């Protein structure tokens, strides 16, 4: 049974950033990643808001700066068991390998909300309805594939905010924080790829909290003519020519809205990933959604109620990529302090 200073569960931005910091401090580090490749959700995203940094650049920086001789990375590996053995943590993976470590860092991240759960939007039923993740894949290829061919019509694209966020009925009361600005970013990108199109964004309210977000929102309107409509979409139905018609209420005009679109993008929210839910319940540190609960949000946000178990990133709550990176930094410091005391 191999012994490490620290086992990091999850090889996304949080896990890799922590691995980079800790390996450079010469701690013997193991990263367990359930997918075939490391990088987590960075692999699903083309460019990052608000400055259109390619996600691959962030991933490249992290992998290049991890100190190889101190780090072991095991992909296609998920954790099945985690328990305390004497003063160490024993982690069992899906290949029945067992590892020992002084500390464990949970960075299992999030999954996007399963849009099929909001059947009224018809995801999986109408080809015109896609999610923000699907759109990002299209943007990576540099083309937007409209399911219905046409040559003579101006394309219409809708973004629908808060799909599976701030939605009592789907059981997710929280705001996913990323979708507002992400839709602005994607709307601009869509307009760049298909300049001859009309883009509408349906929202409850726009939460442009981060640096440069508000500026990007303004730019999207002034330079790219993106239209913002305040109102939740009630339902989407097919038209005779296989496009979709969207029903909503423009709550600023107090008028019902019925519009036909070539493409509808659902801005899916963030839910704890399956790995997050499994680990948080195995360790009994889960909240009502399955997120990992940190010891104290204000002063001990990377600690949990289990000594030696640390937490960073979106397995804790909804964070942006820069926030996740900074959270992983502070987790690395907490872990280094913990290991030094031993």
């Amino acid at each position: 049974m191999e012994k490490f200073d620290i086992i990091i569960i999850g090889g996304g931005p949080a896990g890799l950033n922590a691995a980079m910091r800790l390996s450079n401090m010469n701690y013997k580090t193991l990263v367990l990643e359930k997918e075939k490749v490391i990088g987590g959700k960075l692999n699903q995203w083309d460019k990052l808001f608000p400055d259109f940094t390619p996600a691959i650049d962030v991933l490249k920086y992290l992998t290049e700066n991890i100190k190889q001789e101190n780090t072991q990375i095991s992909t296609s590996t998920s954790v099945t068991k985690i328990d305390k053995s004497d003063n160490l943590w024993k982690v069992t993976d899906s290949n029945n390998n067992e590892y020992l470590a002084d500390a464990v860092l949970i960075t299992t991240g999030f999954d996007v909300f399963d849009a099929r759960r909001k059947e009224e939007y018809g995801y999986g039923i109408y080809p015109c309805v896609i999610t923000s993740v699907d759109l990002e894949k299209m943007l990576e290829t540099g083309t937007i594939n409209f399911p219905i061919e046409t040559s003579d019509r101006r394309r219409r694209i809708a973004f629908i905010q808060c799909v599976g966020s701030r939605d009592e009925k789907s059981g997710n009361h929280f705001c996913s924080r990323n979708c507002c600005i992400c839709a602005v970013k994607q709307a601009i990108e869509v307009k760049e790829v298909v300049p001859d199109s009309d883009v509408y964004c349906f929202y409850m309210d726009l939460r442009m909290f981060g640096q440069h977000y508000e500026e990007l929102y303004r730019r999207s309107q002034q330079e790219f003519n993106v239209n913002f409509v305040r109102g939740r979409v009630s339902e989407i139905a097919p038209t005779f020519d296989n496009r979709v018609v969207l029903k909503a209420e423009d709550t600023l005009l107090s008028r019902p809205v019925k519009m036909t679109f070539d493409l509808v993008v659902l801005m899916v929210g963030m839910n704890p990933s399956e790995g997050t839910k499994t680990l948080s319940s195995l360790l009994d540190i889960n909240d009502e959604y399955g997120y990992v609960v940190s010891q104290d949000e204000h002063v001990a946000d990377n600690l949990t109620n289990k000594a030696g178990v640390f937490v960073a990133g979106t397995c804790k709550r909804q964070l942006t990529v820069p926030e996740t990176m900074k959270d992983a930094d502070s987790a690395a410091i907490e872990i280094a302090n913990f290991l030094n005391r031993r």
Partner: protein
Amino acid sequence: MDTTMYNPFVMPFAFGVVILFLNLIISFVTWLYNLSKTQRKQVGRHIISWRTLAAIWECLRECLLHRNIFKRNPVLGYMHCSLAFGWSLLIIVGKFEASTYSGSFFTNPWLAIFFRYFEDPSRIFPHKELFTFLMDFLLAVVLSGLLLAVIKRFYSRLMGLKKATRHTPSDRIALISLWCIFPLRLVAESLVAGYRNNGGFLTQSLGNLLAPFNLPIDPIWWAYSIALCLFFIFMPFTRYMHIFTEILLIFLRKWGVVEEDKKTGYTDVELAACSRCGICIDVCPLNTAAKINDTQSVYFIRDIRDNVISHRIINDCLLCNRCVEACPVGIKSTKIRQIYREKKSFENKQYYDYLNPAATGSTTSGNKSPKVLYFAGCMSHLTPGIIDSMKKIFKAAGEDFVFVDEDKNICCGRPLRQQGFLDQANTLMAKNVQLFNSYNAEILVTSCPICYNSFKTEYKDLNIKVMHHTQYINMLIEEGRLQVNHSDKTFAYHDPCEISREENRIFEEPRNILRAAGTLLPLTNEKADALCCGSSLGNTVLSTEQIEDIRNQAMDVLTKDNPDYIVTSCPLCKKTFKKGLRNGPEVKDIAEIIIMG
């Protein structure tokens, strides 16, 4: 007057009886007077018919023997039966005994009630010993029922009831006086028997035990008479009014009187016929899942009778009809709730003024005559998977159909009706009738049980056969027009409230379809006993958490045997269950199951 057959203690009893009958006459006449025109017509048409005989038979069965309560719980049934049937036999046999004794049927009315006191033990009359035995036996039966009633007050679980109803002060007076009547009668008759040796096996034995104490007789007879008097005076203001009202209710119902949209005398009869047995509390999902235990039919009716009904009690009800299904008296309490929800003005009217009436769906396109009209309804439009599957089914069966609300037609009106917006609902209904009739189609198929129930029970002038899609799909399969592949999948079928209770019971069609498509698992609560999914449009006051509690209760039943699919035939149930599932069986509408296989 035979002076030996009078004593002042009969006066409270006589006074009580007179007051009681005056009260009853006034109530009955008021109720009948307040019947609506159509209801009175129904009574007139059926009063001289076999229905009257059927009503008499049902009165015997339900008011005296309480067969429905027996079916639910034998101990509870025996309790009601021994009190009701036992007491009435006590009166009848007592009357015969008194008449035989005095040689005249028209003897003092109180003679039968206080017979042992006035009886001259030396006087011989036919079947004297038999009468004595019978009267003691009946008294014993009533006392045994009373004992159970007392036990029930304190240990209601014995009767299969988890909750006993709470009482008002007048209830309490009537209850205590009722509890006192028979023990007092026992002691009074026993004391007499102790002196005169005219008792039966029960009264004589107790009399012999009491004789050595030389107790005075008259005070106990006074107490007995006063207990009767108190009970008779308070009875019309308590739940015991149900004893007489239920008889009237059974007759009116047999004559074809039904609850209408507005309050009538029949509503008052139904309200007064509630015996407050509390059976509705235990079957209510609000109680069993969401711990809401002050809004059930019994409390709703009590609060109306006590004039303290609140907005919340009226509205906090799923209208799932499980209580109506379980009610031994058959009171349509959900219908009465809808009556009390009636809103005179459309509170939010100003918010909808901007809506263009012309934009609310097409109502005039009827130039072709298809065989089938498909009406998806608002809820199916929120679950487009169902519409998609229905279209494929129509295509596979080669059906000549028109999707009548493809462009989002107007609502069937039932959600408005359930919330008390009668005028608005009627406007929508009239438009829909006009639209449906304009097609000259044969069948109206809907994939929504709410619409189905509405078309079936509330639409009066519809010239078209209405079918729920489970019925229609089953018909296609039986006619050989639709092939279903049998798979090795297992299904748990959830019966939607709107088609599993009252007059709309669609149980076999969905089950036939699912048996053809795979294996159907048996459930602990199904058919008329199925649980509500919690998302009923009938209840607008529940919180999301409470709805989730009710949903989880229903899901526990469905997922118990780990089916591959939870199947339902209501878009609303489907949506509700889908929200509740994370890692479990998939939720599908029955139409989607057909298309999938």
